[in-house]
């Protein structure tokens, strides 16, 4: 009997640990399901193929960018320049494509550029100890100003068909969805099972303890930002190719949406905890809420207020949970 009780309580504590580890992710997943059921019941057109496609494929780039952002936040830093970076990447990619460069160059160069820029940011943050918010604030100005002065806001159109990676479909499903799903899974496995992934959690949780344990926090931070650059690069390509035109500007408030997705997905802004699965789910949740408002005949102008309330509620819940844990 005692073994039975032990097994039972073992099962229970395993369940509790699972809930503790993935609580936020489950809440977001549950919210998505409830949202689809309720809004679908009120207005069945919400569940039409076209709308589902536009929710998932049209916002996949946000989810992809949020993967990198989550890593950065888990490491105890932040990047407010990611929106500008995505704008710059999209413009570089589009410019290369319309000027006749081979498609693979138009894809590869912007991604390498993003990795280089963010590695530099990471090096500044890691080795000069300037807070990441200040460095990325400066980078935001540089990227945004540089982009507008270089392009004068001219739109890029008539891009070659094979360049438009976000408009391809495999088995009827738009390619951005594959990018989102595959990159999320790979990143989740990476964070959980590789040395670097675990080092990111360790450095974000307690930098000095991580150093004492033999990790190199500086190198870890540079690597995190480089990875973040990779994901921002892919996000930029998806953003560049999902419409027939690149507007050569910085998508407004994109950095905020990306940071919000990470935070609502359960990445603690204090660093050290969270998963990339949560941020992807949260990005989907936002997109679904934005779409739901339209189908429920609520003015889309309320969307941002709803997002703000959601961040606030999530953060307050997170703080309450931490206080209980103490």
């Amino acid at each position, binding site marked *: 009997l005692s073994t039975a009780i032990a097994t039972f309580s073992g099962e229970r504590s395993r369940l509790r640990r699972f809930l503790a580890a993935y609580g936020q992710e489950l809440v977001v997943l549950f919210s998505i399901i409830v949202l689809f059921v309720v809004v679908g019941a009120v207005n069945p057109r919400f569940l039409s193929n076209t709308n589902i496609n536009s929710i998932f494929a049209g916002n996949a780039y946000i989810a992809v960018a949020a993967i990198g952002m989550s890593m950065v936040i888990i490491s105890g830093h932040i990047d407010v320049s990611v929106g500008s970076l995505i704008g710059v990447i999209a413009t570089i990619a589009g410019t290369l494509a319309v000027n006749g460069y081979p498609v693979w160059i138009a894809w590869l160069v912007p991604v390498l550029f993003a990795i280089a820029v963010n590695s530099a940011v990471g090096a500044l943050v890691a080795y000069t100890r*300037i807070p990441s918010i*200040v460095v990325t*604030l*400066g980078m935001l*100005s540089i990227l945004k100003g*540089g982009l507008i002065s270089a392009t004068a806001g001219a739109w890029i159109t008539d891009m070659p068909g094979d360049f438009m990676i976000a408009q391809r479909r495999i088995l009827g499903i738009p390619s951005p969805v594959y990018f989102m799903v595959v990159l999320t899974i790979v990143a989740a496995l990476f964070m959980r099972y590789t040395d670097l992934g675990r080092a990111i959690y360790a450095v974000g949780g307690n930098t000095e303890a991580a150093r004492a344990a033999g990790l190199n926090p500086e190198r870890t931070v540079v690597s995190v930002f480089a990875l973040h650059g990779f994901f921002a690069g892919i996000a930029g390509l998806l953003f560049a190719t999902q419409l027939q035109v690149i507007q050569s500007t910085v998508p407004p408030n994109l950095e905020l949406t990306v940071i919000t997705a990470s935070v609502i997905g359960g990445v603690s802004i204090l660093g050290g905890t969270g998963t990339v699965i949560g941020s992807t789910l949260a990005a989907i949740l936002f997109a679904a809420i934005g779409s739901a408002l339209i189908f429920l005949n609520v003015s889309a102008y309320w969307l941002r207020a709803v997002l703000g309330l959601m961040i606030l509620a999530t*953060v307050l819940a997170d703080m309450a949970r931490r206080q209980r844990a103490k």
Partner: protein
Amino acid sequence: MKTSGLLRHETVLGVLIVSALIVLAALSDRFFTTENLLNQGRLMSEVGLVALAMTFVIVTGGIDLSVGSILGLTAILLGVLWHNIGLPLPLAMVLALVSGTLAGLGNGLIITRFGVPPLIATLATLALYRGLAEGISQARSVRGYPEWFFFFGQGEIVGVPFQLWMLALATAVCAVVLAMTPFGRATYAIGANEVAARYSGIRVDATKLWIYAGAGFLSALAAVIFVSRVTTTRSDMGTGLELDVITGVVLGGTSIFGGRGTIIGTALGLILIQALKNGLALSGVKGDGTIVVIGIVLIIAILVSAVFDRSRGG
């Protein structure tokens, strides 16, 4: 030692400003005219008012990303209360200032009562307040303000723009409060070591509440001046203001970690940015090129002051 370190940063800034002024005056003969300088003062007043409050916030070791959204929200409230609800304009102005203060107080409560880090608390209210501005206004603008209202943004007193007087007055008050009162000393103490400040009997939470409420109030004041200057109310007003403000404050030598900084430094930082913006524009650099310069100046300024810090063993 501490004071000399602070003065060093301000001296560096002073030298930078003087050399920038000389170079810019040499580049364009339209730069160093009374008219242009006063006009530049007019343009920097809104950012300046908010930056004064932000100096206090950053000295406590906090940050307020929501100031631009508070500006947008109070501008919208001003327009909606007057135009749509039909309140007298002076009353609408007062209510706008009150709601700005309450919005700031809201930030303070979230930060002190729930222990939410200021960065994330005000990131949330940045979205929330801007969202309220968009939702309430439904992105419609309000125009047609009476003539007397334009005095706040376009009028002059003895040849100097009204808002420049406001900015000068507010700067003087803030400088005295931060440098010479128990409240100012509490502000520094909180930023230097919050736990120690708490144990020394400083009313940490009350001080922070006042500071965040003050940031809300000054953002709302900036909103009234802004609306009066551009004669219209729109929900996207003040977008990105927080970046300009934080850049000015940090450039002025206030440590982003808290505990150090002065109002004079902030004023110098703001003047340098405005001079660069205007001077470069007059010398033919396009508006967006100046943003790049400001970003670079920000990073270099922090880098230099970080190097100074380390050489002092700080």
